[in-house]
């Protein structure tokens, strides 16, 4: 579903050039859930934003659904992958009602009015239909993140890119949102790329995880490894130790 070859991302110019992602390659199969784990600043979010099409500094090759995509995406390419952001307080327009938030992707893509899709979108993420009338500030953090997930799914993409989807939420709400994401993946056969610094979230959600450090992948862990806490590199051992104290 996703293939990335020699992805490099650098910010700045000349002497200040900073290589954030250094020639990484990976692929994700259809229906698979890949985790990328690492400390803050290691480049994991940048990889995700390049995949989504938000960052345009990358070089290399990215293909989604077997077709190579450019830095400027066409509507069809944007339809393939949508993203859920880290902070649900900043990712929803504060002056749009929820119904508008959910209809807007359809309207922006010029695929009809979009209002008729709102009840179904809310139901899909387990929110009552009455929420359509509310403003984001009348919702809790967990409810907002559900709305953000619903918005990403309104266009029915095959790939969902998740940028620390639960790190801004309360621990009790984190589990709810993660379970919702797992259920949705099962129901709709979605492909996930989940970025997190929290190994327990990755272990709960992903079939496979890549450990990232200073812009390169240092380790790859499969499901059994994640459950047993087995690692193949020194750095991921340290990461494991610090997250499962």
């Amino acid at each position, binding site marked *: 579903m996703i293939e990335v070859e020699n992805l490099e991302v650098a910010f700045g110019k000349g002497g200040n050039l900073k290589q954030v992602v250094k020639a990484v390659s990976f692929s994700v199969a259809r229906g698979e859930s890949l985790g990328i784990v690492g400390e803050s600043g290691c480049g994991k979010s940048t990889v995700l934003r390049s995949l*989504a*099409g*938000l960052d345009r500094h990358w070089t290399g090759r990215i293909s989604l659904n077997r077709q190579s995509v450019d830095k400027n995406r066409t*509507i069809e390419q*944007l339809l393939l992958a*949508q*993203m859920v*952001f*880290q*902070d649900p307080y*900043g*990712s*929803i*327009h*504060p*002056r749009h009602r929820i119904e508008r938030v959910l209809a*807007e*992707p359809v309207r*922006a*893509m010029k695929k009809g009015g979009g209002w008729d899709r709102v009840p179904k979108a809310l139901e899909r993420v387990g929110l009552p239909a009455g929420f359509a*009338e509310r403003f984001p*500030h009348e919702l809790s953090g967990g409810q907002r993140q559900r709305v*953000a997930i619903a*918005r*990403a799914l309104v*266009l029915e993409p095959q790939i969902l890119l998740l940028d620390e989807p639960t790190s801004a939420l309360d621990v009790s709400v984190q589990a709810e949102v993660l379970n919702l994401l797992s259920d949705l993946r099962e129901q709709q056969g979605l492909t996930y790329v989940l970025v997190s610094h929290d190994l327990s979230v990755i272990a709960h959600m992903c079939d496979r995880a890549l450990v990232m450090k200073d812009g390169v992948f240092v380790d790859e862990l499969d499901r059994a490894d994640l459950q047993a806490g087995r690692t193949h590199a020194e750095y991921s051992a340290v990461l494991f130790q610090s997250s499962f104290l």
Partner: protein
Amino acid sequence: MTEAKMIVQHNALHQGAGRFYRSLQKSIDKLTREPLGMLGFAVLALLILVAIFAPWIAPYSPITQNLPQALQPPSWTHLAGTDEFGRDILSRLIYGARITIQTVLSVTVIVGPVGLIIGVVAGFAGGRTDAILMRATDIVLSFPSLILALAFAAALGAGLGTAIIAISLTGWPPIARLARAEALIVRNTDYVAAARLYGASPLRLLFLYIAPMCIPSVVVRLTMNMAGIILTAAALGFLGLGAQPPSPEWGAMISSGRKFMIDNWWVAVMPGIAILLTSLAFNLVGDALRDLLDPRHARS
């Protein structure tokens, strides 16, 4: 159109009205907790009513001269006294409210959209567009509005229209700067990033995502500006470049009263009080609007 469709549409309309009513009620609720803001709104409402119903409220004609009655002090027949031509000052103030409101509204209607669009486009587009628009703003910002108005009046002839154009020409840069600052913040938010991901066009981003976030602070700023507009218009009137005699412009009234200031204080003081109260009211309303529209400024 089928009946079912009409019902749906009717319901949507009804719902919209209900929503509007609810949010209006919420705003009024908030306003009642701001006595000073309420006072400002009350004064403005009164001023607008007076301006609309001037011919029915004013006890005398604002322009008919009555020389035997010249320079009468305030009394029960002439509540604010009379000027050097025997015209009732209160009646002139009442008619002058029309000119003031007209000036303020015209300037605001020109300055608001122009400033907002220039600022938002500059902030959103960035790069060269931003540089060009902002340097233009800087240039206009460096003109003192009164001097530019003088030049304009000299070129086009004095009059209310010229005054409005001159004040508008120098009025938009602060609005544009404000809107640009807000747009710079908003364009980097996650909800704009999300909108880019679902293919929202630049125009859509500009008008449906970024501009709505800038409007509240622009409205507040415009209301605060209104006080300044009144003062500038009065200053132009005082210099004889605004509305021309015999039209009862407040600034021009002060100017003509200046000659009699020592012996007949009311001729200059009464319009002065009117200007003072009106600009104070606009400032109070601006303050109250900021609390209403901008949650970041909520007082605890």
